[in-house]
């Protein structure tokens, strides 16, 4: 069993290495940055990746998205903090374990053994937070799809331009229609989004995934 260990701080790397050894895992490479971590995983193709999220050049998730399907089979994420969105993101990217440095460093060897054995490892509280995030995500996705289905192509164009920071006048000249008509579209958009101001409209649309900010 071979592992790549990624953490910015030498002491944290040391603790992880010690735990790996105790769990019977050989550390084949170490990295301090996301870029080096991706490279190390590509070259040595380990079975286990122990990944600190707090890296100097990017967050640790970047390593997992860059590796894509080439991710090691077992991934254990180590973080300063945990909230539902972070834990869910780690799970979506294929992580099997998620521990915070405050709670997780002490019995890290046991955690590594379980992760390598294919178990999912996180505290019940983190698990609960992740399920809360999953619920919010499903609700937003449903609402977003509903609102989107109710928009006309023109309203969608106007919404995208609003999100891009254009004024009514600019939108009108871009679409070759009168400012009055744009105002009408905007009023309908507000109603469909259930908002009253432009800022609310844009933030609501972004939450629902209708525009990219």
């Amino acid at each position, binding site marked *: 069993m071979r592992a790549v260990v990624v953490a910015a701080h030498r002491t944290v790397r040391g603790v992880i290495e010690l735990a790996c050894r105790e769990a019977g895992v050989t550390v084949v490479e170490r990295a301090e940055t996301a870029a080096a971590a991706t490279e190390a995983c590509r070259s040595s193709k380990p079975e286990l990746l122990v990944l600190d999220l707090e890296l100097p050049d990017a967050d640790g998730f970047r390593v997992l998205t860059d590796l894509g399907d080439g991710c090691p089979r077992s991934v254990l994420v180590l973080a300063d903090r945990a909230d539902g969105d972070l834990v869910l993101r780690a799970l979506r990217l294929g992580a099997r374990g998620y521990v915070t440095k405050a709670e997780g460093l002490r019995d890290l060897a046991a955690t590594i053994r379980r992760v390598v054995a294919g178990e999912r490892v996180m505290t019940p509280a983190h698990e609960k937070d*992740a399920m809360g995030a*999953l619920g919010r*995500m499903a609700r937003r*996705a449903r609402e977003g799809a509903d609102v*989107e*289905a109710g928009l*006309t192509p023109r309203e969608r164009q106007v919404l995208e331009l609003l999100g891009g920071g254009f004024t009514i006048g600019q939108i009108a000249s871009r679409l070759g229609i009168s400012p009055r008509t744009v105002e009408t579209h905007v009023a309908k958009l507000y109603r469909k989004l259930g908002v009253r101001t432009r800022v609310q409209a844009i933030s609501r649309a972004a939450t629902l995934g209708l525009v990219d900010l």
Partner: protein
Amino acid sequence: MVVEPFAVVRAGLVRTIDASPGLEALASVASADEAMVVVDRLRRGRSVILVAMGLAGEQDAYWLIRALRERFPGHVILGMGANADPNAISRALFTGADGFVDKNVEVEEFVAAIQASGGDEVVIVGPAAASVGTIAEGIERRRSPTFRLTRREREVLVVASEGLTAREIADRLGVRERTVTTHLARIYGKLGVGNRLAALRLAARSGLVSISQDE
């Protein structure tokens, strides 16, 4: 309340629920139609509605979950199935379920899932609990408008991304030009866009096609 097409399973579920402290089976029905009628008559506060994913026909489980979510937002909806794949669970959550329970778990676990449901957290009990990441990915995918396209429509869009005319797309796919323009019109309608460029931009954003940057 239990919505389950198979009589024996239905009876078993009702007995299990009635035998559990703090739980009571208010009603049990075999179809989505009946479910909508009976829920409307429930004069209780927040109740848990267990919907068997195996409900078949036009008014299937997803239809029912969606209808319940819209008309009775106060109730808790749990999908229920045997060895359901993550994709089915994504769809159930996306249409409005608050969770999913596998019929293949121990009775105590099944009951615990009903009791735990109704909070802010999604409840997933059974083998699928190990696939939360995949389930979340599935929800995200459903969100993308290109998901609503049929396979043929996707094919047309992918070929269109090469910048071909309707005539050329038709030749490539071995269909008539008229068919291609019909497909394109339907694609624009589904994606809510007015032209091919806008359709391709949306498709690119959801990863269906890739458009080169250097044009």
